């Protein structure tokens, strides 16, 4: 895949039928293998943007390219199976075991059963859940952190080149969140996936992002690397940096 852009948005807008725009004239690129953070307050359009990428929503104007091909030329189901998707509440199927949940996309893609099983074991180990202990459990028998790990394993199972993550660690307690963030940073570097990661947590953005796109009221304010972000002059960026406040930990981790 080389270094070409994995995702490209050109002046993308999404308007409701009432005329209100949730996303306005958004243009950005995500290079293959990088982690782009979409940072913003609630209502800034970050989740909408993510859903436009996997065609859960369709832009009302503008164009999106995925792996060099216009998103609207992709068959939505095919497109989504090439993009792992992790959401805040994990969205695991409560009536399925961990094993079946993780095997979802490989089975939809009709992988041979032996390969599916091997892949599930590999994925569970990757996210730190010993398969012999967790395969047969149901989602309600897991802690919040374990559920999110399963969510990540499920998203990665069919080895998609792109990973979309919508506040995946947002509902976790601070200690578990920090633990998953650290592990995820290592994982992301190792797997080389293109990742688009939505968060409202500036510390998380600084820790995980190779670049940070700040959204406000549906518009892109700026895109910075974490280093640039801390020094940037834009008022909205300064507000987010200021919210780090008396918490020097996040800066030091950079």
């Amino acid at each position, binding site marked *: 895949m080389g270094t070409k852009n994995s995702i490209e948005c050109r002046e993308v807008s999404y308007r409701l039928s009432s005329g209100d725009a949730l996303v306005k004239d958004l243009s950005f690129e995500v290079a293959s293998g990088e982690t782009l953070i979409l940072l913003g307050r609630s209502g800034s359009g970050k989740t909408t943007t993510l859903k436009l990428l996997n065609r859960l929503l369709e832009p009302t104007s503008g164009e999106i390219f995925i792996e060099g091909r216009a998103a609207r030329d992709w068959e939505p189901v095919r*497109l989504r199976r090439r993009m792992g*998707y992790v*959401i805040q509440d*994990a969205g695991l199927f*409560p009536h399925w075991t961990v094993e079946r949940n993780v095997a979802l996309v490989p089975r939809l893609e009709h992988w041979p059963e032996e390969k599916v099983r091997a892949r599930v074991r590999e994925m569970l180990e990757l996210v730190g859940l010993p398969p012999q202990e967790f395969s047969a459990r149901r989602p309600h028998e897991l802690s919040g952190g374990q559920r999110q790990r399963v969510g990540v394993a499920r998203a990665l199972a069919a080895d998609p080149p792109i990973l979309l993550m919508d506040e995946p660690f947002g509902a976790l307690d601070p200690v578990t969140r920090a633990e998953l963030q650290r592990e995820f940073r290592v994982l992301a570097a190792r797997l080389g996936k293109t990742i688009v990661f939505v968060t409202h947590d500036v510390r998380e953005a600084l820790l995980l992002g190779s670049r940070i796109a700040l959204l406000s009221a549906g518009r892109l304010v700026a895109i910075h690397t974490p280093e640039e972000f801390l020094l940037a002059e834009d008022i909205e960026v300064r507000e987010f940096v200021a919210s780090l406040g008396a918490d020097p930990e996040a800066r030091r981790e950079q």
Partner: protein
Amino acid sequence: MSWRDFLLRHQSEILARTVEHIGLVAAAMGIALAIGLPLGVMIVRRSILRRWVLGTANVVQTIPSLALFGFLIPVPWIGGIGDRTAIVALSLYALLPILTNTAAGIAGVDPAVLEAARGMGMTSRQQLWQVELPLATPVMLTGIRVATVISIGVATIAAAIGAGGLGVFIFRGVAMVDNRVILAGAIPAAVLAVLADLLLGVVQRKLTSR
């Protein structure tokens, strides 16, 4: 004649009427399920259709059962005297709980689960069969359970239009002013309703506790 002698004397007819009764209910439930389940799935995400279908089913439910049997007799093809009319009337009654519970069960599936299913690239058919229906099953079964119990009760009135069943004893007993004859129909009908409820409850628990 003692109560015991009465039962012994009539046991073969009681048995035959019970079988007839079960037949009426089973046929009506079969029809109600065949219509109610797919229709319930169809109306979940179509709010206008849902209002019309559930509204109509609600109105049908409010018609007194004896009147509904009467109304159906002159209707061509489905009407007339006999079990066909009774089965149609019973299916109409069974339809509402099946429809509402199917729709409610599917509508009650966690939106995050559905979003994940769609976002992971499941087709709508896969979402329905692998996610929505299995998760809606306990609620749908509650509807089926209610519909069955209602049908067993209402089916006693089918005797009024010549469809047989345990209602035959009840109507005969009323005409003869003989409580024993009434009870010969009423008790087996009540036992049937309790048994059906228990049985479906077991099925429901089995499916839910998986």
